[in-house]
C-alpha cells in the first residue's frame, strides 16, 4: 500500500499536493487560533494600555499616545530591570552548573533508572510554586541550620540569608532548575556514545572529549535550558517578594504593584512591554552568538 502512494510532493499530481498543503494549514489552525486569542490580542491591548493618559480619577485612563509612560517607567524602575537581569543571569548560571552534571549522570549512567530519576526531577513541581518558595523561607530562616552553618564560616556579609539577594537568587535557581535539567537531559541523551569512543580513539582525553565533543553536541540543550530559566526568572516576583526585602525587588514586583496596588495600568503595561523587548533582544543576540542553528 505505501508503495502505491506518491512518496514525495514533486511526483504527486497537483490536486494531491494541494490537498497535502491544505492539511498542513488545517493542522496549524488550533495553535494559531490559541496564539491569536491569548497572545496577539492581549499583547496589542497591552501596548494600547501602555500609551493611555490619566484622567485624574484613580484607575481610570483615557485612550491616547503618551510615550512619556515609557520614559517614566525607565527612569523610575531602571535599576529594577538591571537587578532583575543580574539575578536571573546568576540563577541561570547556577542552575546550569547544578543541572549539567545531574543531566549528564542521568543520561550517561542512568541506565534502567533513567525514567525514575527524571520523575524525581519533576516531582517537586507537583507541589505549588508558592508553597515551595515558602518552604525556602523556613530553610533559610535566620535561626535555621543553613544560615547558622554559613554564618559560622563567616561568609555572610549581612549575617543572614533570608531577605538578602542570596536568598532570592537561591530561590530562583531552585524553582527553575527542572526547566534546565530536562532540555539538558534531552540533548545529552541524544549524544551517541560511539562518538565518545571515537574521540578517545583519536587521542582526546576524557576532559578534551567533553570539551570538543560532548559539550558542543549538548549546546542545543544548554541554549534551551538557559532560555527556559532566564526568561521566566527575569520576570518573576514571587521569589523576590517572599525571600527578599525591599532592596531586592525585581521588575516583576514593580509590574505587580503598579497593576494591583497603584492601579497605574499604563505604567505597568509599559514596564511589561519594555521587559518583553529587552528579553527578546537579549535572547536573539544569545542565540545568534551561540551559533546552534545547524546543530538542531
Amino acid at each position: 500500500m505505501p508503495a502505491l502512494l506518491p512518496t514525495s510532493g514533486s511526483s504527486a499530481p497537483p490536486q494531491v499536493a494541494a490537498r497535502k498543503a491544505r492539511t498542513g494549514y488545517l493542522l496549524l489552525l488550533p495553535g494559531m487560533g490559541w496564539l491569536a486569542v491569548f497572545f496577539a490580542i492581549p499583547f496589542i491591548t497591552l501596548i494600547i494600555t501602555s500609551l493611555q493618559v490619566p484622567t485624574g480619577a484613580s484607575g481610570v485612563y483615557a485612550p491616547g499616545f503618551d510615550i512619556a509612560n515609557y520614559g517614566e517607567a525607565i527612569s523610575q524602575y531602571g535599576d529594577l530591570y538591571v537587578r532583575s537581569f543580574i539575578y536571573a543571569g546568576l540563577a541561570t548560571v547556577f542552575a546550569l552548573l547544578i543541572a549539567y552534571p545531574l543531566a549528564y549522570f542521568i543520561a550517561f549512567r542512568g541506565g534502567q533508572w533513567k525514567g525514575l530519576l527524571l520523575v524525581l526531577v519533576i516531582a517537586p513541581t507537583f507541589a505549588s510554586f508558592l508553597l515551595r518558595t515558602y518552604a525556602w523561607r523556613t530553610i533559610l530562616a535566620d535561626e535555621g541550620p543553613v544560615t547558622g552553618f554559613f554564618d559560622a564560616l563567616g561568609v555572610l556579609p549581612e549575617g543572614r540569608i533570608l531577605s538578602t539577594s542570596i536568598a532570592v537568587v537561591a530561590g530562583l535557581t531552585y524553582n527553575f532548575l527542572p526547566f534546565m535539567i530536562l532540555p539538558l537531559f534531552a540533548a545529552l541523551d541524544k549524544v551517541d556514545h560511539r562518538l565518545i569512543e571515537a574521540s578517545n580513539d583519536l587521542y582526546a582525553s576524557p576532559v578534551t572529549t567533553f570539551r570538543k565533543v560532548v559539550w558542543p553536541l549538548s549546546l542545543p540543550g544548554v541554549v534551551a535550558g538557559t532560555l527556559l530559566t532566564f526568561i521566566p526568572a527575569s520576570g518573576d516576583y514571587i521569589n523576590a517578594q517572599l525571600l527578599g526585602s525591599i532592596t531586592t525587588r525585581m521588575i516583576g514586583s514593580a509590574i505587580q504593584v503598579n497593576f494591583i496596588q497603584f492601579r497605574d495600568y499604563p505604567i505597568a503595561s509599559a514596564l511589561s512591554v519594555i521587559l518583553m523587548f529587552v528579553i527578546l533582544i537579549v535572547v536573539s543576540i544569545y542565540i545568534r552568538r551561540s551559533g546552534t542553528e545547524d546543530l538542531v
Partner: protein
Amino acid sequence: MPDKRVVEDLHLRDLSKRFGDFVAVDDLTLTIPAGSFFALLGPSGCGKTTTLRMVAGLEDPTDGSIVIGDRDVTGLRAFKRPVNTVFQSYALFPHLDIFENVAFGLRRRGIKNVKPTVEAMLELVELTPMARRKPKQLSGGQQQRVAVARALINEPDVLLLDEPLGALDLKLRRQMQIELKRIQTEVGTTFVHVTHDQEEAMTMADTVAVMNEGRIEQMGEPSEIYELPTTVFVARFLGQSNLFAGKRAGSGADSVKVAAHGQEFGIPNSRNSAPGADIIVGVRPEKMTIVDAGDPIPDGHDRISGRVVDVSYTGVSTQYLIAAPWGEEISVFEQNTVVGDRSLVGDSVDVHWAPDHAFGLDGTGIAPSAVESEPVSGN
C-alpha cells in the same frame, strides 16, 4: 600523503574477555605481522569485535596482554594507544566539518600546521571538494572514506576496521574493498579488519583468521583456508561445503579411503586433517560435475547418484541441489559455459569429482546428522 614507514607487529597473548559467565574471547594468542592486511572473520557474537575493541583500548581484557612491537599497551587508555579505529557506524563528529573531522586526531596531539597533512589525506580518499561540508551532507560511501581518512591521518601502528563496509550497498562495497586495499598498499600500515562477510575477507586480506565462539578456528591465506579447511565450522562458514560423515576404510601411501553411506570416497593424505577413524569428507560445490545418470566419468573420480531437486540460475553459474540416496542435499555449482545445457528438476543425475579436491575433517564426536543437513552457506 604518509610515507611508507616502519610499522611493528601486533601480538595478542592469551587474550581473554569474559562478560559475567559469557566468554567473548577465549585465550587468544595471535601475531599479526607488520604491514599486513589481516581479517578477523566470523559470525556475529564470535568475539571478533570484542577482540578489536580490546586492541583499540575501548574494552579492558579480563586476561592476557596486547603488545605492539615490544611495547605492552594493555594498560594504556584508548587515547594513548598508537592505534586508530574505523567504526562500523563511522562515528563522524556531526558538529564538525569534514576537514575538522579529519584533523581531529592531529589537533589533539598538539600538531600545529595541520592544513597540508589534512589536505593530502583528503586527496588520498578523493574528498577534497567536500572539506567544508558536514558529515550529514555526504553519502554513505563518502562518510566511510572520511572515517578511514580520520583514522589513517594519525599514522597509527595498527588501523582497526570494524565492519567498515557493512552499511554500504553491494556495488559500493565492492568499490570500497578495492579502494581500501589500494590505500593499505599505499600507506603500508597494518590493517586489522573485522567482518562477517567471507567474500570481503577473502578479497581484501593477506591473512584471514576464522573466529568462532571466542577462538580462532583456522588462520592462513584466503586461498589456503578456502581450499583446505580443517574444521567443519570453517568448511561451512567460508563458502559452502558438501560434507559426508564416514569411517576410515583403508590407508594408502598417498590417500585414505573413507566409507560413508555404503560408498567409498578417497582423500589425499595431505588433505586429511582427521587423525582418527571418524572422518568427514568435504567437497566444495564448484569442484563437482553433473552428468546424466550412468554416463561415463573420468577414471578415479568419486561418484554419487541422485535426483535434481532445485536449480537456480545466477548468471555466471547455475546452482543445483541434488538429493543423494540417503536424503542429504548436495550443492553443485556449474559454470554456464554452454548455452542451454542444463539439468532440470526431477532429472536423475550422477555427481562426480576428483578425489584430489576432497578434504578430510576430524569427525570425532560429531554426529553425522550435524554435518549432513542441507549445506549452509556462509553469507
